[in-house]
């Protein structure tokens, strides 16, 4: 069996997220170098603050300002920082209970090595030079010698000019995608301008493109079958909306095409005929462009239309 195909696949997604009033105050506060917490019903101060008590589900709105210094409650030394993490050099992950708070915040600690980090050590916030209203406005923590202040945190109204009301949470994940055995064979055949499907050993149906299994019988389809090149339009629609970066004149026709010998219609664009003359039963054939890895579109063969009964099972 030839080796399966593999290709890099990058998934990137910028989620735009709106903030509730407490989150908005906290993240806007970070932009202004002010750390806010929220008081729970029983008087505990949560940093980072949330809008509902995780234990009682009480609504929490009473903001207080805590210190930007704190104590490490647990840590882990990260010898090889990964993409997106706060520091590019080896650092410690830390949970820090800021002075005035009763819960801990997760962040990075810039320290020379694991021997310089202990649970209970004192740290302070190192602010990012450019701050936008995000958790990354805290660049990291750094060691700090001072003692904890024992004053009660003061109430804060959470009001700032130009409050941040949303964040963009950008994410990127890298994959190496492999389509597996069946689709590798399909794609490799397309490179030779052939279309191959696979036949179900049980119901004898030929699936194009093949996915390796018969969805009706739940068994592997291993018997490879060449189909087409010509086929029949089983159904179609007229597209009047232009997709981004799509270099096709509107309107165009998008159709389901049952290739000769296939028991499942695949989809493709119909051209070489005015859009309003495309019809069910139209016989079409693939048109390949120079260097194309798959048919660019399908055009009429000029044969008489197929009788409805010959393809009605595939509509």
């Amino acid at each position, binding site marked *: 069996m030839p080796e*399966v195909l*593999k290709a890099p*696949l990058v*998934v990137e997604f910028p989620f735009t*997220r709106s*903030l509730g009033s407490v*989150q908005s105050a906290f*993240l806007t506060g970070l932009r202004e170098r002010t750390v806010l917490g929220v008081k729970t019903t029983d008087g505990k101060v*949560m*940093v*980072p603050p949330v809008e509902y008590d*995780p*234990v009682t589900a009480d609504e929490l709105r009473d903001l207080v300002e805590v210190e930007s210094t704190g104590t490490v*409650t*647990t*840590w*882990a*030394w*990260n*010898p090889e920082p*990964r*993409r*997106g*993490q*706060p520091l590019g050099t080896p650092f410690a*992950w830390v*949970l820090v*209970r800021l002075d005035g708070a009763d*819960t*801990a*915040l*997760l962040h*990075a600690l810039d320290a020379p090595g*694991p021997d310089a980090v202990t*649970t209970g050590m004192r740290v302070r916030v190192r602010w990012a030079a450019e701050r936008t209203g*995000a*958790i*990354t406005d805290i660049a990291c923590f750094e060691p700090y010698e001072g003692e904890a202040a024992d004053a009660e945190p003061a109430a804060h109204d959470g009001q700032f000019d130009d409050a941040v009301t949303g*964040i963009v*949470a950008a*994410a990127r*994940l*890298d*994959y190496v*995608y*492999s*389509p*597996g*055995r*069946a*689709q590798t064979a399909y794609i490799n055949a397309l490179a030779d301008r052939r279309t191959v499907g696979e036949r179900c050993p049980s119901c004898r149906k030929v699936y194009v493109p093949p*996915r*390796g*299994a*018969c*969805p*009706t019988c*739940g*068994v*592997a389809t291993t018997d490879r079958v060449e189909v087409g090149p010509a086929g029949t339009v089983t159904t179609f629609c007229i597209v009047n909306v232009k997709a981004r970066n799509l270099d096709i004149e509107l309107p165009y026709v998008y159709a389901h095409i049952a290739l000769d010998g296939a028991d499942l219609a695949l989809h493709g664009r119909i051209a070489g005929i005015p859009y309003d003359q495309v019809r069910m039963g139209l016989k079409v054939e693939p048109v390949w462009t120079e260097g194309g890895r798959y048919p660019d579109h399908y055009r009429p063969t000029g044969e008489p239309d197929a009788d409805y009964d010959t393809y009605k099972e595939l509509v």
Partner: protein
Amino acid sequence: MREVAIVAFAQSDHLRTTDELSEVDMVMPVLHQVLAQTGLRTSDIGFTCSGSSDYLAGRAFSFTMTLDGVGAWPPISESHVEMDGAWAMYEAWVKLLTGEVDTALVYSYGKSSPGSVRDVLTRQLDPYYVAPLWPDSVALAALQAQALIDAGETDETALAGIAARSRESASANCHAQVKGSVPQGDYEVQPLRKGDCPPVSDGAVAVILAAGDKARELCERPAWIRGMDHRIEAHSLGVRDLTDSPSSRLAAERAGAFERPVDTAELHAPFTSQEVVLRKALKLGDDVAVNPSGGALAANPVMAAGLLRIGEAAARIHRGESDRALAHATSGPCLQQNLVAVLEGDAR
């Protein structure tokens, strides 16, 4: 309450990479095996439920592809959870308890090899305060491990012992990925060394559930589900006591685990340090066989490793090696969510 049992269990070999296999190629043999064990056909199954995650595949609605392996025509009653298959099994169990169906097929799979599972799992974290920092799954487990060490509940030597015992047990498991004597290796994130961390695995698992007499008909010694419960803790790690797992304890209590002793516990503890937390939370004595399969340290197909624990526990009952077993599944960072099932064989 209606009696429901696990009557069949099958799993794939768990491997670091399975490039030549699509998801359906990986899942289909396992589905065929559980059906063959019971003699059931797809059309005999009352309800089908699966667990998996699109983030592993990097593709939307990836679970629909594996449905091809079930044979979903004529139309079947089907559901999916974007979680470990243990939670899919919970859904199926509830469905059987209602009396609406008598049998259920539950399967799950994880193909972790296409992406970087350490990074992929960051996307399940709080998107406002945590995910933008990209703390990976090993880093978060290491914070929990250090908290345990600081609390005097374990040390690096004891953790290495858990790793060694798990992989030694896995030697008897022909499907396991990492087995035998394996060096602890360097720190991944201190205090966790490579040996404290689970392998990156591709794999699949399936079980069949049946109710009452149907279960007795399909299996010589059904693994009766005496109770099952799942619980969740506060989202923020800084709010929790990382050395404990109150959600596991509560789930175990509600599942009836503490009513009588268990002889076997299959714990879903991908990191050695998590076994320390779970043994305490679930009140497991030294006389309990913990992870005789090797557990998630021997094979960790994400989204299948929890259902695997339940399946392994059930299989020991089927084989007569256990009379009362506890099976545990987890999801999320540092044992965020926990499910406990209590399984029993008929008295001998």
